[in-house]
């Protein structure tokens, strides 16, 4: 029986990667809070995570030479546009408060995923040492 890190670590590596990507998008939203015409974006975290887990659509490889479709980026994390609650005159759809709370929430979720990931590693280590 071989040790599979993918199976051992579960969903957390993908969650951490997606969390960092979402932090980048939310940071761009906050940074462009005063840019005229900027449209706030976000990713559908649940759908993106499901696709990253392989439950979504994936390319079928019919030849051994076919490259896999995961080129360092998750297929399902195309950023969507937010629906603004209040229209602004300059066409900017960033709601600073909403983005701020989403950023904080994302940071906490990221830390939680890291914590769980850390626990998984600790578990693996104690299993390897056999103490």
């Amino acid at each position, binding site marked *: 029986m071989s040790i599979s890190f993918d199976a051992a670590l579960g969903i957390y590596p993908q969650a951490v990667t997606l969390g960092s990507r979402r*932090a980048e998008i939310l940071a*761009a939203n906050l940074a462009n809070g005063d840019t005229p015409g900027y449209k706030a974006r976000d990713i559908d975290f649940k759908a993106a995570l499901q696709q990253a887990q392989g439950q979504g659509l994936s390319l079928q490889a019919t030849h051994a030479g076919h490259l896999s479709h995961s080129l360092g980026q998750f297929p399902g994390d195309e950023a969507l546009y937010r629906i603004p609650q209040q229209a602004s005159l300059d066409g900017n759809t960033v709601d600073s408060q909403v983005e701020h709370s989403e950023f904080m929430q994302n940071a906490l979720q990221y830390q939680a995923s890291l914590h769980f990931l850390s626990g998984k590693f600790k578990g693996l280590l104690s299993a390897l040492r056999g103490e």
Partner: protein
Amino acid sequence: MSLFKVFDIAGTAMSAQTLRLNTTASNLANADSVSSSIHQTYRARQPVFATLLDELNPAAPAGGVQVLGVVESGAPLQQEYAPDHPMANEAGYIFHPNVNSIEEMANMISASRSYQNNVEMANTSKQLLLRTLQLGQ
């Protein structure tokens, strides 16, 4: 690693907001700089922000802020009849800049709040990255 890009994004935004604070300071400082010629009078300056897109992938969602330039306000100047003023022209008029002090104050508060937002964002990202470095320890 996407979290490192947050620093770039926050950095561009902070530099843009600093420029906005700079122009606001210049506008407020020159609010009373009268002139004897309509062409030499100070006009309120405002930076123009735009999203900095990734050249390789323009559809990428994340990008910082760039300052396209600084434009001068087209609002009409106030002219005042003050023949005793040392700067008065032949007709006895002096020209006041078109700086709206209240607008500039609101602008300044908005810029400083945005700057704080970006600093906080960079701080949070730093903490997340430090936690990531400590993974498994």
